[in-house]
């Protein structure tokens, strides 16, 4: 049997979904993270509890939400609560996973979604700002990213730390006062899967996607990546994952159509 064909977005969503364990909790946004959570629920993690920052808890998602506060985020939900309630659950230590995005990310997993430039009062490019991202990155146990990988995005130093990664290395989060044991977990790109080195808290490649070379990964990164001793090839989507993703999760191809 020949391997099924898939696009980059489908690959990233499938890889991300496999990191979500059953009986855990996740605060997700719209788009690819929501698709990954829905796919996980329909495969290995049927009891993954999904929450949205504006207050939705445990919906039976009928379609992809457009906003993290729209009515789909609590459709047949277990609770329709509030921003303060969701953020308090994160702060109390009840939320295992979150997914974030941004314009820039550095080797410690710090994310910028606020501005390009040096002066916040007169930014070269104004971006939306933290929203809930800075809170989620501070308070959830494991922060994940799904993002295309290129030198413009993977930079040596982000212009602005909106969402804290490991700041400037091992021990820095704890020194700053962020809750111990939290931080970036995996970065899933269109080229590879990246984790974080235990000793230095720097990005470390764990697997490269089928057909992607080590050189290609490094060329698309603005800083030196570490490599796990046993870098594998990322396991491509199975036909079952693709069927569920295409037929049940994103049948209108809002997200996977961007691949």
């Amino acid at each position, binding site marked *: 049997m020949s391997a099924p064909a898939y696009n980059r977005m489908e690959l990233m969503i499938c890889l991300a979904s496999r990191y979500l364990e059953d009986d855990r909790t996740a605060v997700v*946004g*719209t*788009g690819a993270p929501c698709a990954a959570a829905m796919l996980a629920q329909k495969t290995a993690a049927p009891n993954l509890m999904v929450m949205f*920052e*504006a*207050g*939705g808890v445990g919906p039976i998602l*009928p379609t992809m939400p*457009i*906003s*993290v*506060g*729209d*009515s789909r*985020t*609590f459709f047949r939900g277990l609770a*329709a*609560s*509030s*921003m*303060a309630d969701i*953020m308090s659950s994160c*702060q109390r230590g009840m939320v295992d996973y979150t997914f974030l995005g941004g314009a820039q990310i550095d080797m410690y997993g710090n994310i910028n979604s*606020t501005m390009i430039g040096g002066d*916040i*009062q*007169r*930014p*070269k*490019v*104004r*971006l*939306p*700002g*933290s*929203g*809930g*991202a*800075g*809170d989620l990155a*501070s*308070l959830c146990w494991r922060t994940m990213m799904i993002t295309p990988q290129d030198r413009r995005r993977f930079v040596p130093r982000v212009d*602005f*730390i*909106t*969402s*804290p990664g490991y*700041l400037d290395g091992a021990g*820095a*989060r704890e020194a*700053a*006062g*962020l*809750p111990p044991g939290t931080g970036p977990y995996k970065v899933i790109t269109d080229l590879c899967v990246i984790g974080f080195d235990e000793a230095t808290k720097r990005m470390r490649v764990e697997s490269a996607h089928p057909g992607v070379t080590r050189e290609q990964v490094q060329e698309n990164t603005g800083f030196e990546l570490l490599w796990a001793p046993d870098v594998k090839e990322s396991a491509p989507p199975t036909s079952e994952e693709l069927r569920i993703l295409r037929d049940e999760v994103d049948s209108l191809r809002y997200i996977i159509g961007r691949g």
Partner: protein
Amino acid sequence: MAEAVIERMAVRRVGRGRLFMDPNVDKAREYFRQRDRRLVPKVTTVPEAVARLVHDGDYVAVGGFGADRIPTAVLHEIVRQGRKDLGLSGHTATHDCQILIGAGCVNRCDVAYVIGLEARGLSRASRRQFESGKIAVAEWTNAALAWRYRAAAMGVPFLPMRSGLGTDTMKESAAVEITCPFTGIKLLAVPALFPDVAMIHVHRADVYGNCQIDGIMVADDDLARAAKRLIISTERLVPESAIRADPTRTAIPYFCVDAVVEVPYGSYPGNMPYEYFSDEDHLRQWLEVEEDAAAFEHFLDKYIRNTPDFAAYLELCGGIKRLQELRRTELMLHAAIGGGGAK
């Protein structure tokens, strides 16, 4: 142990951002002491409410979540009456940001989330306002702003939080790092935020301003209590008996409210849970027209400034027929009825 911790207590200013609103709770108490508590009818028109309660220079906060359960008619009226130099709480401000900042009504902003419309794209008009330096900003997070409302609602000058330590966001905020007097951990103190005026769209209200909200609260229970003045826009007015029949459901009590305006479809083009879905076509039209500054001004004239009221705006956008589609989309009836429905 406790003594040792107290000796170690430190206070460190981490944020160089401006504090736009005074967190002085005793001043707030004096204000709330004078606040009208009478159980009297407050139903009025949108123009009257905005003329009386929203002034040039006021700091405003908008309920809902950007394009979900927002008081669009009130926001349009602020633009129509030409309010200027407003402060804005940017607690996920999306379509509300597009209207108020896009139309040039705002000169300062507590930013948690602005200019974006989440997955839909970015508002060029409001982005131009920020990039030109016309808007003074302080940076926060959504939780920080939600907890700042909560502190104000509680009548305390700040709340401590664990989020944001070590970030540039908090360096551009007015937060202060403190040490916990009980456990010695680092915390950020975020100051109470008492907006001059807030506007919140709800599902049901009686003439006195007792309100019910279906679905997520976002931060509106706290915002209603934190605001010095509050305009409620409601999908429908209901008799007082409907409130008294189920007091568990009262999200906002009348004594927080200054004006009640009945605006059916009042969250359009935003989503109103269980009522109608967002009009994604119209929101896309906004985003596209904003790419050209002159075209956007013309658009604002057509849809807001030269439109007499919100009912006329709804007509311009397709009227009852369009709203019926959005209602069916919200209730997901298209599969049962047939037809594609509103996208």
